[in-house]
């Protein structure tokens, strides 16, 4: 179970607002995070990952306290080790496809499987500069999965993929999520990719950020 209850002041084009999010999510569920632009969806994901500190709140993941502002507990991002797919991919320009995955894990069998999932087996020696937008996005997803995270946070993760590649990747990812028992928080504006990801999932829910 993942329990979240946070408050964070954010600056928007309408002035300062308070981002308030709370909810309980079953382990292994797929959570769709939606809401208008600028509402704080990315900020919420970054708070969960530990990159941004909220003014107040609690985050408990599978009985482990990640954040408790009253008790001044806040685990570092290194200890939370969420999988994070950034909207801008945040790929390392100096590393090849394979080096990205090797930087994250020493498990070569897992790396081989990830490369197959992302259909990047023939591009292992390529740096991000030489990959297409879709290939870069797939690499960002694979890198986030490389550590086998219990919680995967994805910010618009399929926006650069064509429908065919997207469906194939989503089907593969669903298998991985089931195997690892990964809980997924995904920001997406596309109902179709969401339906595909949620179809057959044990648990799914939606979180509206306004």
């Amino acid at each position: 179970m993942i329990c979240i209850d946070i408050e964070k002041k954010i600056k928007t084009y309408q002035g300062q607002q308070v981002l308030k999010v709370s909810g309980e999510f079953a382990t292994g569920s797929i959570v769709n995070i939606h809401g208008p632009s600028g509402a704080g969806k990315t900020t919420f994901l970054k708070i969960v990952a530990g990159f941004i500190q909220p003014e107040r709140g609690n985050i408990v993941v599978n009985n482990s306290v990640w954040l408790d502002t009253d008790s001044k507990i806040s685990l570092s991002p290194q200890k939370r080790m969420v999988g994070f797919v950034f909207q801008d991919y945040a790929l390392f320009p100096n590393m090849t496809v394979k080096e990205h995955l090797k930087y994250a894990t020493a498990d070569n069998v897992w790396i081989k499987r990830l490369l197959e999932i992302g259909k990047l087996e023939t591009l292992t020696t390529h740096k991000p500069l030489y990959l297409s937008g879709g290939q870069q996005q797939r690499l960002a997803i694979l890198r986030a999965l490389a550590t086998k995270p219990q919680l995967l946070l994805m910010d618009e993760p399929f926006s650069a993929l064509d429908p065919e590649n997207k469906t194939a990747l989503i089907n593969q990812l669903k298998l991985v999520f089931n195997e690892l028992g990964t809980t997924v928080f995904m920001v997406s504006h596309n109902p179709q990719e969401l339906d595909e990801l949620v179809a057959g999932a044990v648990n799914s829910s939606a979180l509206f950020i306004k």
Partner: protein
Amino acid sequence: MDFAPIWLTLKLACITTLLLLAIGLPVAWWLSKGRSFFKIIIEAVITMPLVLPPSVLGFYLLLAFSPQHGVGKWLQQIFNIQFVFSFQGLVLASVIYSMPFMLGPIKSALQQLPVSLSQASYSLGKSRWQTFVRVLLPNIKPSLLTAVVLTFAHTLGEFGVVLMIGGNIPNVTRVASIAVYDSVEQMDYHAANVYSFILFAITFVLVTAVFIFNKYQLKSPLE
């Protein structure tokens, strides 16, 4: 023809650049992260040698490290180190004088890297140090090279500061730029020309090499 000033200059530039690289990397990293009033003051002090007359800096260093009083006296008595009219004094002055040339490019480059690069690395369980060495540093290589070469070239061209704190002692503090001035004073235009040409050639080759390397680095091979 006495080439000692050239060797002394190259030695001074090498030592200064290495020292500044060791000092500059952590300081630039620290300055690139967030803003505070304290950081602004530190940055202003570090940047001042860019606009301050070198003789002013040299004058204050001369006062500060004079063996007759203050810090200079203390260093002389406790450690038997003398910064005035010595090679180590030149190194100290050069480190202070060339610091903005090392810090500026590195700090700007670190600031321009998207913050998500560090965050991605942290989420993979990597420490700040691992992130700095494996992710940040390799991605600022062109700026790092620019910083190293500018620092080296700038140290080659120092005059006012080294003259104030080091004077003109052959084989100790008589660097090439001072040798040029001294040769002209003695009407030895041939020697002045040789020293000047060597400095000119080294600087030209260094700066051109940086431009070529950085152009190659920044150009996408797909273009």
